[in-house]
């Protein structure tokens, strides 16, 4: 683990170079321990680390980027030199880029649980033993993972100012399996203690046991009750194809020329806010600026896209602190997405349904079909049920939807008041705090 002190002493002096107009540094580190299991046996068990130090060098409006995973002094200097040599390239086109400054932020230590960050294998094994034992008593097996670790982000401005944030994390994902049936449950939090593994185990078991005797429904429009994990997957794809400024600049996204106009149903409000404690907090972006609360959709009306300094300039908007990793060409993205809750409970949604499909989660969504409409396709998975006359009647074979997410959000009947943090540190840095939804006439196509 790197400390703020180390960043100040070892890395910050490097930005004070006379060889460039400006220099900046981004430091990112994830330390991870994962117990991965299938058939109630651990098959992959590892301690893993991802570390990257970016040097950004500005020379005459051009930026050169070089990075290394090494914190060895010589390797750092070489990466710095490489970035400098890239910035010195003679280009045919005139560049007008910049490395922005920022004010150091006061960051909270409330998200740091050292015991969780450094939990070792035996502690995970103790939890897994109980989970597998519960599975045995129901004659089912578990696949999934139990993990813990830490994230560190540091950004150094051209003036040598440092923003540094760290948080710990823990997560569990369970898929209970029995024959053709499977049930999914998961939880993530800042500490191992926050994981209620008993509750998660019971949910996965219950879904799996309910999943026997599946019926096949024909492809058609059905009302759906989406649990938070399913909603979060839709929001993650909205983020990927349309919340960032690049998709507006390139005119491919659904926010293009829509700011201030209705894009969705009135109950829909989604924002990104780096300091929202219901998500995994990342208080500043990869340019060091505070990740401000930015409404992408407010009461169904489109807001401004997520911007870094470059796209803010291009689109003549104010930057809202959403710069991505320095070499990421996807442009600004949300890492702390929140959908506002409603008044209903998930149980009330089920009770209210004459006929609907209850969906635990989606699988393999792809949102590139028509990004202006947010047209997506994907499958249901690990717990799909037919609800009739207010009760779960039977399990359903998984189905494919092809649907405009925004148009579906115009047909929302209920939003749950309960929301859930959906995050997977084994796949992505971002997190979503999502409610459940009741949507009328969702389009299943095969």
């Amino acid at each position, binding site marked *: 683990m790197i400390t703020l002190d180390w960043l100040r002493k070892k890395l910050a002096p490097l930005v004070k170079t006379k060889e460039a107009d400006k220099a900046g540094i981004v430091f990112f580190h994830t330390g991870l321990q*994962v*117990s*991965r299991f*299938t058939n109630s*046996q*651990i*098959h*992959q*068990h*590892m*301690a*893993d*680390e*991802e*570390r990257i130090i970016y040097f950004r060098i500005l020379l005459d409006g051009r*930026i*050169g980027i*070089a*990075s*290394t*995973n*090494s914190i*060895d002094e010589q390797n750092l200097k070489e*990466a710095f030199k*490489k970035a400098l040599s*890239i910035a010195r390239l003679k280009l*045919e*086109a005139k*560049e007008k880029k910049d490395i922005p400054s920022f004010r150091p932020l006061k960051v909270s230590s409330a998200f740091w649980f050292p015991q969780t960050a450094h939990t*070792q294998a*035996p502690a*995970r*094994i103790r939890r897994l*033993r109980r989970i597998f034992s519960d599975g045995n008593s129901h004659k089912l097996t578990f*696949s999934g993972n139990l993990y813990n670790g830490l994230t560190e982000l540091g950004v150094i401005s051209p003036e040598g100012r440092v923003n540094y944030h760290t948080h710990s994390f823990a997560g569990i994902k369970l*898929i209970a*399996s029995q024959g053709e049936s*499977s049930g999914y449950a998961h939880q993530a939090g800042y500490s191992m203690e926050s994981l209620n593994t008993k509750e998660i185990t019971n949910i996965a078991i219950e879904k799996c046991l309910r999943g026997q005797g599946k019926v096949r429904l024909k492809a058609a429009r059905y009302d759906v009750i989406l649990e938070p994990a399913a909603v979060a997957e839709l929001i993650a794809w909205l983020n990927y194809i349309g919340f960032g400024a690049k998709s507006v600049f*390139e*005119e*491919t996204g659904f926010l293009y020329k829509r700011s201030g106009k209705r894009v969705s149903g009135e109950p829909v409000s989604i924002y990104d806010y780096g300091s929202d404690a219901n998500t995994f907090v990342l208080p500043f972006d990869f340019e060091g600026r505070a990740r401000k609360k930015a409404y992408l959709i407010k009461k169904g009306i489109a807001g401004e896209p997520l911007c870094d300094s470059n796209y803010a300039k291009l689109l003549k908007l104010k930057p809202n602190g959403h710069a991505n990793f*320095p*070499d990421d*060409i996807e442009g600004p993205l949300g890492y702390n997405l929140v959908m506002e809750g409603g008044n209903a409970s998930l149980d009330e949604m089920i009770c209210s349904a004459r006929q609907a499909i209850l969906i635990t989660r989606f*699988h*393999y969504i*792809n*949102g*590139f*079909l028509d990004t*202006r409409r947010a047209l997506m*396709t994907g*499958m249901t998975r*690990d717990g799909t049920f037919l609800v009739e006359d207010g009760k779960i009647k039977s399990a359903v074979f*998984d189905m*494919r939807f*092809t649907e405009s997410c925004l148009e579906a959000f115009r047909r929302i009947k209920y939003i749950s008041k309960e929301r859930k943090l959906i995050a997977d540190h*084994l*796949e992505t840095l971002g997190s979503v705090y999502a409610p459940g939804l009741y949507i009328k006439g969702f389009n299943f*196509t095969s």
Partner: protein
Amino acid sequence: MNKQLLRAMLNKLKSKGAEYADIRSVKTGHENISVFNHAVENISFHIDEGYGIRVLYNGAWGFSCGSDFSEKEIEKNIKLAIGIARSSSSLNKTKSVYPAYPAVHAVHSSSYQINPFEVSQEAKLHYLFYTNEILLKPPKIKFAQSTLDFYHTEKLFLNSEGSEIEQSFIESGGYCEAVACAGSLVEKRSYPTSRHSQIRQAGYEYVQELDFHAHAPRVRDEAIMLLSAPDAPCGQTTIILDGYQTAMQVHESCGHPAELDRVLGSELSYAGGSFLTLEKAGRFRYGSKAVNITADSTLAGGVGSFAYDDEGVKAQAVALVKNGIFSDYLTSRETAAAIGKTSNGTMRADSYNHIPLIRMTNINLEPGKPSLGELIADTKEGLFLATNKSWSIDDLRLNFQFGSEIAWQIKNGKLGRAYKNPLYYSTTPYFWNNCSGVANKDSWYIWGIPTCGKGEPAQSMHVGHGTAPARFEKIMVGVKK
């Protein structure tokens, strides 16, 4: 890296009671250059270097990694890996069976003519700027992007059986795209692949071979043409997929389901399992007789090629589907043993800090007899779909839906008008059993996909697919809105 030190550490692992252990030391350099319209979008160079330690202890696995090559740090990681394995063994009821393999001593380098890291970045930028200039010529093209990617990987593999394998790979490639806009319409065409670089184990000569400048006029003109094209029709018809779309189809519906670790449940918590369950090997009719699929890690130029995999098993060419019958899986030492076979050498990790997994090598659809022209001429009515745009498949690799950037009508053996937003959907065995022809070697091409996702933590692997355009009968296209 210090080979003697790593070997000494392996000996230490053995002395601590490891039944098997390996250490992979990996150094990767990646250069990305991307130009958007008339400006540099990104020029970056990343170096990643470290080692991964895999230990089998009391029949269970442990893994740790580090980037500090000091003796003290390596020893710390050895202890960590053993501790993790010991914990696994305290829970698992079944021990992992990991058969011994003969020790190998080998050195291998992939071939190239022009070292891409010795080509000046100015020259690369000039190539991309000129590509975008061609793409942006008509006013209706509002955006152009062109990208080059170069990778250099050096691997040292040592294991407790005495193997010592050094391998080095150079990969090069790129892609370009043009976006045409008019009112509410946005249409994109890409070459040769979309959303990622087309890569080969090759040097800068492959970038020259890709020849963006020659293809850019067609790419931009087709993007403009799509603005006035109708939506692709819905219904059942014959489709011919271009080589790249066929590669994506092979990737999702042949390559992934044939991974034996997936079949055995290793990926249930991520992308899911496979419909190719164990009883199907050697008897299941996966496709028509025209369908022959080979996993070939010896294929020159393919990014799934190597001399030895990350378990020290020699590269091989293995038939996965023979005359339509599913014949074999992609295997590792452990999974092959579980079905009474020996590994066909497909274990790879994407970097030092991740464990090796069964990964596609070069999964190739072998060429057929007709030329592409003959395949089209022999089609009364249908669609010819080109360049992948969207992809989705279920957690057993059965129910899929793909979209492509463009489709052309086929009528009475000739290509007709262009359509936008084509989609097709089906289930894997039905689809491949309705394959009525694969074009011949004249249009067979080695595709390289640098973004194949698998595992937790997620790994992104470079995999290859040799494919030619292929024809499928009675396939559902389009979806009702």
